[in-house]
């Protein structure tokens, strides 16, 4: 593309003047389709080329020419008709009521859309509050669990030597269990059993 550009950019002036040979013009137009630089260049050069058309001595045509020009399009309506579907978009030509109606329709649409968006936002806010409440209650549960664990550790603290002696595993117990009891110990376990197991050799 760059090699083509370096060669073809020198044809821009002749192209703007409409004097490239057919093959040259075809090649230049292929390049023009993909080259923004040459497209901008041609636009500039065409300003001058267009001005040349106005630089010629102005001469009035014979008055009879007007009738000939109009006669050829009106004389035989079937032979010469304009191409159908004039695709000329001109909003200035729209009636005022249609412009206002279009504005109203667009405005109503925008309002409805805004309403829907607002509903969605409050819905999401409610969900967020709910989620935040759940997080708070989970935090509380975790704190409770930490307290339980902490109190259990505290009970371990009163694991006195006589207690340890009392659960001396030398007496061939069939099972061991840990219970929570009032500080100081009791003759027989009363509380709920937590750690239950059987001794096994290490």
């Amino acid at each position: 593309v760059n090699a083509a550009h370096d060669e073809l950019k020198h044809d821009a002036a002749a192209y703007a003047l409409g004097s490239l040979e057919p093959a040259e013009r075809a090649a230049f137009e292929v390049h023009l389709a993909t080259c923004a630089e040459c497209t901008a260049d041609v636009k500039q050069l065409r300003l001058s080329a267009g001005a040349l058309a106005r630089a010629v001595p102005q001469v009035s045509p014979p008055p009879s020419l007007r009738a000939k020009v109009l006669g050829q399009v009106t004389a035989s309506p079937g032979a010469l008709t304009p191409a159908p579907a004039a695709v000329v978009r001109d909003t200035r030509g729209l009636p005022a009521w249609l412009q206002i109606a279009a504005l109203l329709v667009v405005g109503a649409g925008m309002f409805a859309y805004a309403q829907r968006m607002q509903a969605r936002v409050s819905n999401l806010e409610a969900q967020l509050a709910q989620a935040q409440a759940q997080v708070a209650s989970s935090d509380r549960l975790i704190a409770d669990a930490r307290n339980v664990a902490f109190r259990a550790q505290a009970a371990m603290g009163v694991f006195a030597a006589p207690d340890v002696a009392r659960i001396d595993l030398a007496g061939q117990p069939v099972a061991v269990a840990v219970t929570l009891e009032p500080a100081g110990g009791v003759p027989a376990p009363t509380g709920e059993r937590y750690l239950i197991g059987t001794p096994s050799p290490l």
Partner: protein
Amino acid sequence: MVIWLFAAVVGFPGRSSESQADDQRSLQRVAGGDAGGLGALYDKHGRAVYSLALRILGDEGDAEEVTQDVFAQAWRRAGQYDESRGTVAAWLLVMARTRAIDRLLARRVRPEGRVHEDDGLTLQQLPATNPDVASEMMAAERGQRVRRALEDLPLLQRVAIELAYFEGLSQREIAERLEQPLGTVKTRMRLGLLKLRDALVEAQP
């Protein structure tokens, strides 16, 4: 920006957009099959179209036929006019130039082609009837300005541009005619067009 520049160079100073809007309305009427729209376009631009064809072909009869062809083409293709590519006036003049050059080249191939006359001969002809005297005067003034800018160009630049635009010669043919290297011709044409554009833009009030 480009559209504005274009209007500044080619359109009517100070009323170019108004004039272009009128032309577009006329063209819409033409697209709808209204011959009155074509009449309005002819009254405004027929003289410029005819003058360009006459400058290129040097023959009144040929210039008349080209003018008829241009407005017949405008009648058929009104719906295809694309405002982004220039004013209606520029559109008509491009068609006129293309058709006139086609005729000139066809004539050159055939032996009965006559020698191109100097355009000074037709300068004396006066505008007989014109519906819009004010815009005619402005058009004439602008045309003079373009002509002066063209005359101020270095000779090689001016001749290369004139041979390309008014004679339809290719770059190769111009190089042969002027006995200059092809690359020089290309460069001179470009420089000349750029200078012309600068002169026109500077001349705006």
